[in-house]
């Protein structure tokens, strides 16, 4: 009966394309894959064609995403495109399907948009690299994997693309594989992610075992009907799934891979840190947020956790990651590493927002962050490119005058990141703080404000040291503005960094997550549409710009205050500074910050040797006991027996006859009995 049902499902799910609009999601998903395959198989040797393929695919995907966004994002409909049967065995049924709703269409835009710009930028940045086509294959593959996560309509499919993102990040981080450090960083990123995936997979199995399905829509419906469906494992399942996010979104303690991932080419860093890989974790948490909306329940062994929910733990971890990363960022000198830690910190922020029960705030911040962080990374790449791959900010300086476009856009990105009103970062950060405050996490709110101040501090430090002042090295002296293919993406990205939040994005997301929630009903009562957005942009600009101050003044004011304090301290310390004054002021703390609080060293000293030790033991056991003692023992004793028996083989005919006769006698005797 079981098999019959499964068989039935297979035939039912046979691919049959209707011309439904949601089915173009399939094209969006597959376009980058086709580009990657096409480049590999057809135009491996042509730089120009490879880039054309890849860019054309991504741009088309972006346009299609926009169409989808207009159809579904702005409407109220949620659609699932025609699924393909992937695996139907026993009581597991996995289809490859896509979900098209507000969340995924927005994310589609972010991913394809940033990806397209990064690819344009790469035209300039990677110019002359001998593996230029391979780079575009990697980018396309990465985009494909990420789109898969965005569109996935079930946990297994998400896990599938989750792994693919892991491997494509490995490909890109290790792009310059001949560099030992790059190859090592790629390996580290992949393996750290694998640790997270381990938990994620177990979480999926746990959920499936209890609920009997992995489909998001069905799960959400079932959980809505039976909140106790997962029994006393609900919180554990939530945390296990969160482990996946911990890996991809680099949350403590799996954060160590992300700074090392800077070994990849800068466009890769931009893609990974802005729109794709690290965003995946947060996006996934938002996608399965319904899992966390049940009451906390722990198995007996963990019952001491009592009423602490999985979300609380997530929020705390997010906050801790944000703080830790911000502290580390303060003492970094490598321009890309500063940005990397800043990404870590902002991701902690987003995870904290999810943990505080504000997935909308998290997604909001994710979206704006994607814009300005891509901008910052590409800007940093432009600087590095100009300074002949010099990455130390203390060897730069005075770049403002020679690279005006880069400086301007970088400054805008910085302003957005530190949350200067009315730039986009301000609004999203404000919504994160608001979520913490509103949902009863005052400590985390305080932490958020503190981190906001620290963010401002290290970003202002970066800008002051790298762009202002005088040049401190020859490389910086010879710097010149980057080519148009690199500056244009910067300019294009500056637009959303500044103005993204002027669109009613917060309401849009709130509508997605809490459409049935009375609390937010008022905010979304008016129909959101293109028209409304446009009218909001031009007519109610004033209202939108200062909305946070009117709506919830405390976080807005605190956020702005933190910004001012952070900026003031940074300017005091670093205005025309020639050397970093902080190590003297802070002593051991600064050393700790600089050395990432020795986490890498700790892991390298403890966990890796521990696993190696077990492996060494197993190997030794195999070598000495199993194939040594046992196998060789058997072998040896057999040989010994053989040597003993050989003595009987005297070659004397009559001895043999004697034995033969004895044998015959024995047989006869037995026969007589």
């Amino acid at each position, binding site marked *: 009966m079981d098999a019959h049902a499964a068989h039935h499902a297979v035939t039912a799910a046979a691919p049959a394309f209707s011309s439904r609009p949601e089915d173009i999601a399939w094209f969006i998903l597959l376009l980058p894959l086709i580009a990657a395959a096409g480049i590999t198989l057809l135009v491996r040797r042509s730089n120009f064609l490879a880039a054309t393929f890849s860019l054309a695919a991504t741009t088309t995907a972006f346009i299609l995403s926009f169409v989808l966004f207009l159809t579904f994002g702005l409407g109220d409909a949620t659609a699932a495109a025609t699924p393909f049967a992937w695996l139907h065995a026993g009581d597991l049924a996995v289809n490859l399907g896509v979900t098209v709703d507000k969340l995924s269409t927005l994310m589609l835009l972010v991913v394809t948009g940033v990806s397209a710009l990064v690819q344009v930028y790469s035209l300039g940045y990677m110019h002359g690299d001998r593996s230029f086509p391979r780079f575009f294959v990697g980018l396309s593959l990465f985009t494909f994997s990420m789109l898969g996560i965005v569109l996935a309509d079930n946990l297994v499919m998400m896990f599938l693309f989750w792994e693919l993102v892991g491997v494509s990040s490995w490909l890109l981080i290790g792009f310059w594989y001949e560099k030992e450090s790059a190859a090592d960083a790629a390996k580290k990123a992949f393996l750290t992610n694998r640790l997270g995936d381990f938990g994620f997979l177990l979480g999926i199995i746990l959920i499936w075992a209890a609920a009997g399905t992995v489909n998001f829509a069905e799960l959400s419906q079932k959980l809505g009907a039976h909140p106790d469906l997962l029994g006393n494992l609900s919180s554990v399942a939530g945390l296990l799934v969160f482990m996946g996010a911990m890996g991809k979104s680099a949350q403590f303690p799996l954060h160590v891979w992300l700074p090392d991932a800077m070994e990849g080419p800068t466009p890769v860093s931009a893609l990974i840190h802005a729109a794709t890989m690290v965003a995946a974790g947060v996006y996934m948490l938002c996608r399965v947020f319904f899992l966390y909306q049940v009451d906390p329940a722990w198995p007996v062994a963990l019952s001491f956790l009592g009423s602490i929910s999985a979300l609380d733990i997530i929020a705390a971890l997010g906050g801790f990651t944000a703080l830790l990363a911000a502290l580390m960022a303060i003492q970094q000198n490598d321009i890309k590493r500063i940005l990397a830690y800043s990404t870590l910190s902002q991701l902690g922020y987003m995870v904290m927002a999810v943990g505080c029960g504000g997935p909308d705030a998290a997604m909001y911040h994710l979206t704006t962050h994607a814009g300005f962080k891509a901008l910052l990374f590409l800007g940093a790449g432009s600087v590095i490119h100009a300074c002949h791959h010099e990455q130390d900010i203390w060897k730069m300086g005075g770049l403002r005058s020679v690279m005006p476009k880069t400086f301007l856009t970088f400054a805008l990105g910085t302003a957005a990141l530190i949350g200067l009103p009315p730039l986009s970062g301000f609004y999203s950060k404000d919504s994160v703080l608001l979520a913490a405050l509103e949902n009863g996490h005052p400590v985390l709110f305080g932490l958020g404000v503190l981190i906001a101040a620290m963010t401002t501090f290290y970003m202002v430090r970066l800008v002051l040291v790298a762009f202002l002042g005088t040049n401190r090295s020859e490389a910086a002296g010879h710097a010149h503005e980057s080519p148009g293919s690199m500056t244009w993406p910067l300019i294009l990205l500056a637009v959303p960094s500044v103005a993204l939040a002027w669109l009613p994005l917060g309401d849009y997301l709130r509508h997605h997550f809490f459409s049935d929630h009375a609390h937010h009903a008022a905010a979304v009562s008016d129909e959101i549409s293109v028209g409304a957005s446009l009218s909001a942009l031009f007519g109610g600009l004033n209202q939108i710009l200062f909305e946070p101050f009117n709506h919830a003044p405390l976080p807005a004011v605190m956020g702005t205050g933190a910004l001012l304090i952070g900026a003031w301290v940074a300017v005091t310390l670093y205005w025309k500074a020639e050397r970093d004054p902080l190590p003297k002021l802070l002593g051991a703390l600064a050393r700790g910050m600089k050395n990432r609080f020795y986490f890498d060293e700790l892991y390298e000293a403890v966990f890796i040797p521990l696993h190696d030790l077990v492996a060494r033991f197993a190997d030794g056991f195999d070598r000495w006991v199993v194939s040594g003692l046992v196998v060789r023992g058997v072998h040896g004793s057999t040989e010994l027996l053989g040597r003993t028996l050989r003595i009987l083989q005297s070659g004397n005919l*009559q001895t043999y006859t004697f034995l033969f*006769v004895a044998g015959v*006698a024995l047989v006869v005797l037995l026969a*007589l009995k």
Partner: protein
Amino acid sequence: MPALPDLLFYAFAGLTLLFGFLCVANPLTRNPVTSAMFLVLTICSLAGLFVLLNAFFLAAVQVLVYAGAVMVLFLFVIMLLDLKEEERRQLNKVALGAGSVAVAVIAGILIKAVMSAKPAAEQLVEGTTKPLGRILFTQYLLPFEILSLLLLVAMVGVILLSKKELK
């Protein structure tokens, strides 16, 4: 007083065993020629037993083939090879002892087997030449012919083996 055939049986049986013993384990000499001579005597006594069993034809063949042909062959070979050596060698006492024990055991077992078997229904048959010839040339014709082939093969083989230089 037992009947004559019984007396004859005991006589021939006794002789057979005695000569047999002297053939293989003559306590006085270990000369192969002596052994061969006792073997001839054993075979002749055995022929006597065959006669007692009314197998006249076989008795004749036994004497002709064994005592005549085979023994001559043995003697030829003994003469051909200079076999004085064994007499100089010491008898292997252990082998002799073990051999005797084994033989005793085997003999015991065989006799026990013979005795434990039920005596067969005593229908007697005459093994004269005529019925034997009839059965040999009717029922056993094919084996008989094959046997002739075997003898031919043996002859060729022996000639080949005895040639001094094998090519």
